[in-house]
């Protein structure tokens, strides 16, 4: 019962924060509400026995990526009259959501999912901890992991080349 209450609080928080995020005029408010949504999602990951993923969510998403986004928003220093023409059109957002739910998500949610009887499998006590996930990364996924470092290096160099005034 307690699990259900926590799930609905976190799920409701993430959905509400997401909806607030796509309707704000000021991008700083959007970024702050998105940090809230990431926090709620980190709680959901923790409920799914994914402790390492939950910590990474807070550290990298809420702590790293969002700080970078907020930093750039503040760097560009947009004024209120610059932001006004870019404000959300509630009619468009509502219409898009209705169309998406009617055509794509509705059939999945109401026809496909109810026919699947997925159940939670019994888990080992060390499921999702740093040690077991790390063992998996450094044995089965060592090559993708090394490629990932190459992607990050490329992104750093690419960002520098694009953002710099003169090379």
């Amino acid at each position, binding site marked *: 019962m307690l699990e*259900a209450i926590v*799930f609905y609080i976190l*799920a409701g928080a*993430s*959905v509400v924060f*997401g*909806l607030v*995020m*796509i309707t*704000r005029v000021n*991008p700083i408010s*959007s*970024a702050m509400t*998105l940090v809230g*949504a*990431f926090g709620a*999602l980190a709680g959901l*990951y923790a409920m*799914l026995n*994914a402790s*390492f*993923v939950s910590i*990474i*969510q807070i550290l*990298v*998403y809420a702590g*790293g*990526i969002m700080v970078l*986004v907020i930093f*750039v928003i503040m760097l*560009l220093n*947009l004024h209120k009259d610059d932001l006004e023409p*870019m404000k*959300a*059109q509630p009619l468009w957002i509502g219409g*898009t*959501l209705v169309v*998406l739910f009617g055509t794509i998500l509705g059939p999945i949610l109401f026809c496909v*999912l*109810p026919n699947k009887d*997925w*159940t*939670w*499998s019994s*888990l*080992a006590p060390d*499921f*999702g901890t740093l040690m077991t*996930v790390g063992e*998996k*990364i450094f044995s*089965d*996924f060592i090559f*993708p992991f090394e490629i990932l470092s190459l992607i*990050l290096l*490329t*992104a750093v160099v690419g960002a520098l080349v*694009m*953002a710099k*005034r003169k090379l």
Partner: protein
Amino acid sequence: MELYPITPNHYLTLSAILFAIGIAGVLTRKNFFVTLMSLELMLNAVNLSFVTFAKVHGDMTGHVFVLFVVSVAAAEACVGLAIVIALFRLKETVNLDMFKSLKN
């Protein structure tokens, strides 16, 4: 679908709803930053599905993929923000409607 107990379907439904919100944000907003953040929300919705199925199957490969997705999202945010700085220097705006010079 009953409200209680919490099954994998509940998590997958939440994931679908968050993904739809992300799509709506990307399609309708003109502010570059909000579009970028909606993209992050969509990636998170997919991560939630990955973690749910990892628990359903008792296999941690989903967790490894979430870590990869987070790293690629970091790289994408880094390059995306560099692009918006370069574009802002050119046109003094982040309105996506203003960046259509490739069209004509």
